[in-house]
């Protein structure tokens, strides 16, 4: 126990500066009202759905748990069920075998809800594209608010995408 505490103290606080929202990442403009978005600020529940990725994007989403990024410091947390979620964080491409599960997860998420598509594959279908087994980009299957490119997108890019989705669009 002493060693554990000593290691905690020795490590100190590692959190780095948070990124700013970037309107260039928006796919849909102003789908939710500003009043709703303001409520999400400081308390956002995310459900991650892997709809067919290579698992590279999942590595970076998991890396958001690293103290350097401290996502929970912004009141943003990952939840175990779409029923508890305000936002779906979806990696792609959407395989045809995951299409039904993704639609059902979307339907199970209460309104008002946001969708962030993650990675080059989530944004465009990426290297896998569309074929007999792949539906390509996430927006081919469910509506998308913000798309975060990258292969895989860095934790900072992911945070920026999430923050853009809940930021009120500047007029």
């Amino acid at each position, binding site marked *: 126990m002493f*060693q*554990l505490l000593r*290691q*905690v103290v020795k*490590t100190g606080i*590692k959190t780095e500066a948070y990124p700013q929202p970037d309107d260039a990442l928006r796919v849909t403009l102003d789908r939710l009202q500003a009043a709703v978005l303001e409520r999400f600020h400081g308390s956002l529940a995310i459900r*991650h*759905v*892997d*709809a*067919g*990725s*290579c*698992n*590279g*994007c*999942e*590595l*970076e*989403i*998991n*890396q958001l*748990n*690293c*103290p*350097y990024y401290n996502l929970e410091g912004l009141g943003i947390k*990952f939840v*175990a*069920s*779409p029923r508890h979620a305000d936002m779906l964080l979806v990696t792609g*491409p959407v*395989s*045809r*075998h*995951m*299409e*039904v*599960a993704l*639609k*059902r*997860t979307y339907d199970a998420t209460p309104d008002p809800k946001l969708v962030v598509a993650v990675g080059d594959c989530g944004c465009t279908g990426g*290297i*896998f*594209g*569309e*074929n*007999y*087994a*792949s*539906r390509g980009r996430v927006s081919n299957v469910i509506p998308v608010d913000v798309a975060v490119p990258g*292969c*895989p997108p*860095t934790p900072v890019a992911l945070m920026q995408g999430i923050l853009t989705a809940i930021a009120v669009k500047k007029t």
Partner: protein
Amino acid sequence: MSIVDFDMAFDTLDGAVNIHRGQVDATLWRTLCVHVAASGGRLVALWGSDQTQHTGRYAVHAAFATDAEFAVITLPLEGASYPDTSDMFPVAIRMQRALHDLLGLSATGAVDDRKWLRHAAWPADVYPLRKSSMDESTQVSDFKQKNIDDVPALDAYPFIPVAGDGVHEIPVGPVHAGTIEPGHFRFSIVGERVLRLEQRLGYKHKGIEKRFEQMDLMHGAKLAARVSGDSAAAFGWAYAMAVESAAGVTPPPRALWLRALLLERERIANHLGDLGFLGNDAGLAFGLSQFLILKEDVLRLNQALFDHRYLMDVIVPGGVARDFPDDGVTRVRDECSRLEEVVQRLKHIYDEHAGLQDRFVDCGRVTPDLAARLGLIGQAGRASGQAWDVRVTHPCAPYRELDVRMATHQGGDVAARVAVRFAEITESIRLLRLIVDRLPLGEIASPVPTPPEGKLGIGWVEGWRGDVFVALETARDGRIARLHPRDPSWHNWPLLEHAILGNIVPDFPLINKSFNLSYAGQDL
């Protein structure tokens, strides 16, 4: 008697691992399987190819390894069936089922002939990997998504039921509660104790093998790195090795040493992440925070040295795409010292933590005997006494000179898999130091000549999870006729069904994490 003594024509392929190649008929196919199984060898991969345009036939291929040899055997088929091998190599069961779903070749005599990778995306009488069944335009349009409500009926799958007083089922997935990949687990339980677990995978199937066939050899490297994103260096290397063996070219020494550097960095990063999540799943969030800091530092140095956090697209056919910067040697040495110190301290904390050890010890045990019988491989295999490590048993350059010390454990439980990960991090740190000290100077890539049509190329590399295997068949003009990437998860998923037996459901996430298998790599 060794495989090469067998009554077959063998020719040796060029390339980094020593491979024997032969062709057999159906009778000799079975005899050879019996022989390999009896001599303690294992089935590395089983795949098929459509050669109807050239020979009018389909073919089934198998890669076998014994502790001294590695052989790739081809069986040209008369029709569309071949003799079952799963009675000798249980690991073949799912491979054979997938082979039927994708290519329509069936194993005569197989006990389990249910579908595996096919759900409802394409009809049962269409085989995506047959050259005749789909061209690029029909691929997208032919199988439009049916009504969402029809899919469950179209996708009916006969799970094996368990009956009895108080037995009930818990279906889990495909969308899971954590940030993990999709798959379905069907638990049959009494109270909290698991009587049976049946996995259903294939949710992520996105036509990777078909996609390769639309690519040329250079472009294929990008896709290979994305078969399973956490093993980008391992798949990148195995793919490059396959192309190089088909083209008959050897990369310069500096490139080979840099590849080993990349592979060991990937091993360290993944093991660090797993150790963190294993602590977290047992209720020690401190472990997650600490190990993710270490992992993040490794990833950031990857970015600084190779311009990619997960080392994607650094390994290319012919060599590597980016040279190691001059200050790299110092930075890697500094990183090694820091890592070594903190990992030792954290290991001590894990070892001494009663609550953690209470969850780890005796949880999810796979005995060495069961592991040998069912063919467990990779780091999970080594934690159950299976001393297979391609870096040691079938080393390619530069591993021949690095003299890797294999980490094994007889325990077979979560604690053993944790111990093997710690030992492998320590060993990889030693290897990183050796590599940067002895890194040869010179070119980082050789030009790759276009190989002739119909050449076979093989790549075989020990990734962090286990051995990664790639088989390539070339087409005209430097294109890919067939590519089969085999993730070690194919071998280890079935063992997870055994590891959970007799344990309670809440221990499943911990046991699952201790294997940390790839869904993407097995779903293809």
